[in-house]
């Protein structure tokens, strides 16, 4: 380990997601839920037969789909979005270790993860691409008039397959969250135990420790003071 600082220099709890990120996450989750439920009612024959009201279900699906990127965009722009933008940048940047970790099917014990591991980075990129593709193909399906006819069939094809894989990755996202209550609760209350950080995101732990050393102790105001110096 090349860690330059010890655990005792970080407060017991550190902020993982700020309020803006959490609000954006849950707004996004609700819209995804509505879009996925209406998608199922439009797509799965036996559900379509039960729910009916195709025009209404379609309208709700389109509105939820169009609104879906809004919380993310609003959270990313403006002064309030600095933490979200920084996390987006973390998700975007892949190190050699990230690639090695994915190639080892997440088994390589020598790889130390940052705030996000390579699986989370891959999932974030896929989800981002999927949202853009669903938005574009859904728009072609809804407003098909100006486009060549084959585009409508092609857009339906892309929309269906992307949605199919997105169902799987979102189910996976929820399963992983349920298996790690600290991580899941951090999306609700914002903070996470620094012991969790040291175990699951050691490089981020190093980063936070360096920052804590460089900056005045008040930098982690959301967290409880953990030693006498902070208390003073």
């Amino acid at each position, binding site marked *: 380990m090349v860690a330059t600082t010890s655990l005792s220099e970080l407060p017991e709890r550190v902020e993982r997601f700020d309020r803006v990120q959490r609000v954006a996450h849950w707004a996004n989750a609700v819209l995804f839920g509505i879009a996925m439920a209406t998608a199922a009612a439009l797509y799965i024959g036996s559900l379509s037969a039960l729910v009916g009201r195709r025009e209404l279900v379609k309208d709700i699906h389109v509105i939820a789909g169009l609104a879906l990127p809004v919380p993310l965009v609003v959270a990313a722009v403006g002064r309030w979005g600095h933490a979200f933008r*920084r996390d987006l940048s973390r998700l975007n*940047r892949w190190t050699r270790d990230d*690639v090695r970790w994915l190639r080892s099917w997440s088994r390589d014990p020598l790889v130390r993860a940052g705030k996000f591991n390579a699986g989370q*980075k891959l999932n*974030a990129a896929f989800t981002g*691409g999927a949202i*853009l*593709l669903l938005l574009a193909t859904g728009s072609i399906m809804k407003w098909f008039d100006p486009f060549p006819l084959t585009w409508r069939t092609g857009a339906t094809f892309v929309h269906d397959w992307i949605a199919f894989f997105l169902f799987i990755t979102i189910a996976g996202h929820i399963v992983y969250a349920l298996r790690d209550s600290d991580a899941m609760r951090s999306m609700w209350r914002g903070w996470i135990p620094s012991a969790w950080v040291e175990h699951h995101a050691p490089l981020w732990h190093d*980063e936070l420790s360096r920052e804590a050393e460089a900056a005045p102790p008040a930098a982690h105001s959301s967290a409880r003071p953990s030693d006498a110096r902070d208390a003073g």
Partner: protein
Amino acid sequence: MSVAIEGKPIGRRVVLGMLGLGSVGVLVGGRLQDAIASVFANDPTGITSLLPTGGRFRIYSVVGYLPSRKTAEYQLEISGLVDTPVTLSYADLVALPPTRMTKDFQCVTGWRVQDVKWVGVRLSDLLDAAGVQDEAKAITFHSFDGSYSESLTLDQARRPDVIVAYSMEGKAIPARHGGPVRLYVAPMYGYKSIKWLDKIEVVNAVQPGYWEVRGYDVDAWIGRSNGRDDQPV
């Protein structure tokens, strides 16, 4: 301020790559869909029916419930400008000379189910049985879902490939496919093949149906209407 984040912008490349692949998919997706559908066409397990393989029915209903009627209670009424209004039970229909067809079902939104086995009675036979009067020009079809209606000109209705169907894929037509009795208008887009057929009314002018007042073409020839160029059935 915090230190710069290391690494290559691979996340962005994944997103851009997906957008590229997606664009190709929009351009060639129709043909890909057909290829995938033919691969999955013979799946006895039915597991692949949840995959977006195309080539399968999507169930559209314009009302908020699944209309259904028991075959024993089913009645088809033929009325309007006819000499003798006729009411047929399901058993009456099945007793008439059957017409069998194996033909595709093409939806105006793009999906197509190939080689569906249909059995029914020619609509023209039913019209002859009731006796169409001279001033009659068209047919209005009513569904027992209470909302949907359709239309055909008399000439269209007399085509041999227009049937009142009571069997599909070798079985009684299930409720979600419009059973017990639906119309199958082979040469036209699916919205013409009204489900849950209730009444056949002979009239003196075409009355545009449910989707037709909402913008679809009244003459719905496959490949020659609604701005589409699908292969005719």
